């Protein structure tokens, strides 16, 4: 950290903070969409299965205080490990969670909040 004034800062930061928001509208009722976030079989299908996914492990316990763990790889990429913890679950409206993601030598800490609105 001993950087003299005027010296260009070329090193990549070790930690990057970022926030993003994705809005997506589904024609189904919130109850149906919530079910797709809550039901193990359905979650498995849209989150870690499908073309290009190779699933190695998947556990899922959906409730406040519950957790989700999955290990999978996508296309030719490295194994990705996701460990999620559900903080708060408000049926049909909101899911707060935190998760750690390991991908090769990179690590991500995410704080996803899913909000369902009509």
């Amino acid at each position, binding site marked *: 950290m001993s950087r003299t004034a005027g010296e260009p800062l070329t090193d990549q930061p070790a930690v990057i903070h970022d926030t993003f928001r*994705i809005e*997506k509208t*589904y024609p*189904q*009722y919130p*109850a*149906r*969409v919530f*079910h*797709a976030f809550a039901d193990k079989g*359905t979650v498995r*299908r*849209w*989150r870690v299965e*499908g073309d290009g996914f190779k699933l190695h492990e998947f556990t899922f316990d959906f409730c406040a205080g519950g957790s989700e763990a999955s290990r999978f790889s*996508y296309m030719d990429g490295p194994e990705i490990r996701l460990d999620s913890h559900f903080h708060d679950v408000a049926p049909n409206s909101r899911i707060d969670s935190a998760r750690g993601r390991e991908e090769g030598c990179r690590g991500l800490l995410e704080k996803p909040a899913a909000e369902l609105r009509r």
Partner: protein
Amino acid sequence: MASAMGAMAGGEGDVASTTLVKQPLDNRPSLMILNYMLNQLAVDSNFRALAEPTRRAMVERLSRGPASVSDLARPFDMSLAAIVQHLKVLEECGLIRSEKVGRVRTCRIETGGLNTLADWVAERRSLIERRLDRLGEILAETDQSTKTTPNEAKEAK
């Protein structure tokens, strides 16, 4: 043409040629590589074609409906030869097609012509966006199998 060949071969030859046609060609590794390369070339020529503002404007115009070459030329301050050259580029990479009836050449958007680029863009979407797309597909699937759940029936009232 296939039926004409079948009629000529007749009998057993007919059966053999049918079996050959039904083989899944895509499973052969060399063909998969060839398909991939052809697709890359198509993506390349499509992007090249659309990188030019005049050609992009022509595609935008044609997406609103067919137009004659002179209609397409009107907004641009360039020779008819140059216009025809631009249209030729678009037609060669399959984005538009044209036909001449009498003395008028009419151009229109090729149905599915943008699929190559749409697929390319879709494949570049981030994992999280693709997951949400997939969620949409699954929700739509279950729409067809089970019409309404008791909860929805309540909400619908």
